[in-house]
């Protein structure tokens, strides 16, 4: 074993993490980020690296109840932490998942899990957020495809489902409307596929 390999071996430390309810004992190198451990070591590839420097939110996970950027967290510092990733949120059938599908909140989809994690953390602490509160919570999540307006609708609806204001089943049906999307067709005197309305 070379000196550097020895150094790496010496540096390995075992940490304990609870990820999506499952306990893990993981040997980690001190420079490994939490994102690297989740995606590369545990195969939870929903935790995505986009900017790799804390600027985009794609790697968001919930650590001890708080949304954190896992690309900026060293795994070794998370010893004993309780972590929730998008996979755990999906497995728990959180209404955000259905709402995100219904409102087509994704295009390329690379950033989508990070949005869902941040939104979950928001709804955990604020079950009835205003649009401004949603924007404020989500402003650190970047989407290059520009899907932002859809997230506002989805998060609002998921919050309603969680509060019992609307039924989960009705949330699953395809969205009938978006803002004024049929105006042109109507103005042209044609039957449009969608109906007008919106929120």
């Amino acid at each position, binding site marked *: 074993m070379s000196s550097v390999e020895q150094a790496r071996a010496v540096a390995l430390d075992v940490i304990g993490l609870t990820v999506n309810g499952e306990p893990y004992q993981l040997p980690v190198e001190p420079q490994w980020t939490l994102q690297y451990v989740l995606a590369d070591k545990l195969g939870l590839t929903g935790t995505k690296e986009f900017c790799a420097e804390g600027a985009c939110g794609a790697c968001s996970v919930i650590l001890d109840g708080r949304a954190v950027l896992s690309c900026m967290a060293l795994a070794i510092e998370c010893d004993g932490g309780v972590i929730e990733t998008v996979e755990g949120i*999906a497995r728990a059938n959180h209404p955000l998942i259905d709402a995100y599908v219904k409102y087509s909140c994704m295009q390329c989809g*690379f950033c989508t*899990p990070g949005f869902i994690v941040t939104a979950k953390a928001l709804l955990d602490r604020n079950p009835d957020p205003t649009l401004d509160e949603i924007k404020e919570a989500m402003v650190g999540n970047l989407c290059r495809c520009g899907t932002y307006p859809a997230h506002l609708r989805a998060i609002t609806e998921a919050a309603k489902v969680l509060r019992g204001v609307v039924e989960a089943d009705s949330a699953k049906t395809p969205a009938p409307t978006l803002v004024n999307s*049929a105006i042109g067709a109507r103005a*042209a005197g044609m039957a449009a596929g969608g109906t007008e309305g919106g929120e």
Partner: protein
Amino acid sequence: MSDRKKMKVDQTEQMLESFDNKIADPHQLAEYNVIGKRVLRTDGLEKATGSARYTIDIQLPGMLHARLLTSPYPHASIKSMDTSAAERLPGVRCVLRYDDPELQVGVATGGHELNAELPLPSAVHFEGEECGAFVVADTEAIAEDALKLIKVEWDQRPFVLDEVAAIEPGAPISEPRKFPDSNISTIYNEVHGDVEKGFAEADKVVEFKWSFGYNTWVGPERPCGVWRWNGDFAECWVKQQRPHIAKRAISTWFGGIPMSKIDLHCPYQGASFGGWSQMSWNLGGTYLAAVASKRTGRPVKWAFNRREDFYGGNMDSGTFYVKVGFKLDGTITAVSQRGITVNQDLPVFGIVAHLIENTKIPHVAGRTEAARVNKGPTVPTRCEMNINCYTVDLVFNHVADALGMDPVEIALLNDGAEGHDIDWLNGKKAEIGFPVRDSLRECVTAGKAAIGWDEKRHAPGTKKLPNGKMHGLAFTWTHEWDDSAGSSEIAIQFERNDGSVTIMSCRADVGVNAETAYCQIAADELGVPFEWVRFKHQEDTGFFAMTPDTSTNLSINGWAVKHAARILKQRLLEEAVAPRAKTQLAEYPPAFPGLEPDDLDVKDGFIYEKADPSHKMSIADFVGPSGAQGPITGTAGEPFFTSTEEGLAYPLRGTPPLFESGWHLQRGCYLGVRLRFCRQAYFMEVEVDTETGHVDIQKVVTVNDVGKVINWDGCEGQAYGGAIMAIGRGMTEEIVWDPRTGVMLNGNLLNYKIPTMMDYGDIETIMVETQMGYGPYGSIGIGEDVATVLPALIGPAVQNAIGVWIDDFPITPARVLKALGKA
């Protein structure tokens, strides 16, 4: 002629109908079940749950990780390189060097066509260019550490960054190997009419200069690739919008790999907006991974880091000089424009094309001088039509401002095509079977109402709001360009057991939700529930669909899906009335004896007799199970059946595979090929803080004549998503280089600002459906439009607010303050 042969003829005829299709779609459906309705996107759950896999996510047993050395200088070559320390670093398994005997020949490494690039060059022409060494290690971090241990002696050369300076006499030659004599790689002239005559006819002439900074795509997934050798089979995962071009290039490697021995996977794409996939050398890393994989016997993944993705940029950056002549009533008589573009390899798209294709302006001239500078390669990003769209926007708004007229009226007055007016264009619509609709008028009518145009419009610099900011309102327009050249192959089949439908064709999913639209088309054409249909696009099945660029998702692939589905449905009906399998023991009668195919139809997954809809059979029953598909002979020689269906005297077995293919070949909508009839219009409302120079986008209205909406979420997503991207491109996004060192200064998401959820105002997306598109059902693609047209509108909107033109994009607070004389 047999039925089978008839079907083949039909397929060719269908293709011919739509090749250069100067006719409206002759095969409209009587009833749309899911087309034009809102359906759940087919990839939604996968992407929402984090289970969607991208190339960067691929992990294979024993996989190694590779990184490329990059140049710290904008123009240099390697004199010598010492990789010994890197090779000694534990965990490093292989280092490929530029002087490796196997890497001395150019190989096809991507781009639009097969090229021959050195996979690991020793000379560089921009800071950050990949060169010299490819380090393969157990982890990406070790490979990165190893790069730092490489010692290079560089031969630095003079460089030039500014495109205008680059074409001055005596400027340093930026890329002497390719362009030894000059920094102008191409000059492209567009001439329509006689501009001097047009200027002589004008009452007034306006001249202005504008510029467009270097912006980039910022694809969330880093460029990357994975290679594994399985014996003599090659297996690779590509982040590529164009997997078919990638496979073609790969098949030329190593003396030739048979196409049949290449297993190509094209997982979900973390978006590239054209960008990286259009670039030559985009497969360079994959080639090197293949070499390293052969040497190490292990799979190899290579990847750029985030900064490295920033080096490539939009091909439409440049400096432009415009002259416009017009009558006092707003009729434009002539436009000429000279453009100096940055590293543009594809100047064929022109800079005044939209004025020719889209207006009655009789005299138009453009001259593109493609300058080469020591910045990264530029390629179409979202679309290559930025300059054309900026030109339309600035020409019409400058004319309106000079005349004090409403720019909407100027647009309507000059609408037309190729120098002809709208009446001529309307005649053409009628000739080829389209509805005669005034697309632009419909678009502006809807858009004006949505933004409150007539109530809110005011003279430039005259409306101060109670919050102290200046209010601005602006409008722009163009036609729906939808280049739509290319070919598409689609395979489609009914699955055994349940009759569900699989569409197969390898195609990159970049997120525009076209796959859902294809499933909608197939479902309605076949008469099956939408939920039965899946587009399997990530695997190489030998069929390749057109790439998700040039707005061709619907106008090419949509046709191919439609053709394939129509042929498959015809085949289903023919088989339904034909005798079924014949064995030595028995011949089985038709499922619908005594009827002709035309007597039948399909709805909700049932084949039924039109005259008696209660006489029906599910497609699942008709296709039968997989596995035992015929009678099994018992020990006594008598046949017995694994099941029998109620009411039928014979078992439902013995149908042939119900698999068909469709294809489509199209030359596109370029000038001289097809006139374009659909228009798009955009309105923007801003507030400008004259103390800080900050521009707040209050409202954007996008109006797109999409011909016919197939998928609402897809259309709207492209519209509002494009609007948000446009706000970034028009206001904040520009790559900055240090003029002293030629080093990129903001290649990261902290310093290159793309829009966040708080950076846009209300966005209203309006779809107009005139059915005047050349795509199936009169549709047309809009994926490139909004993000390409809308950034330029910020200029006129700010001018309307502060009364001063800013024609240099992006329109940053610093530029606003400078225009106001405050900086």
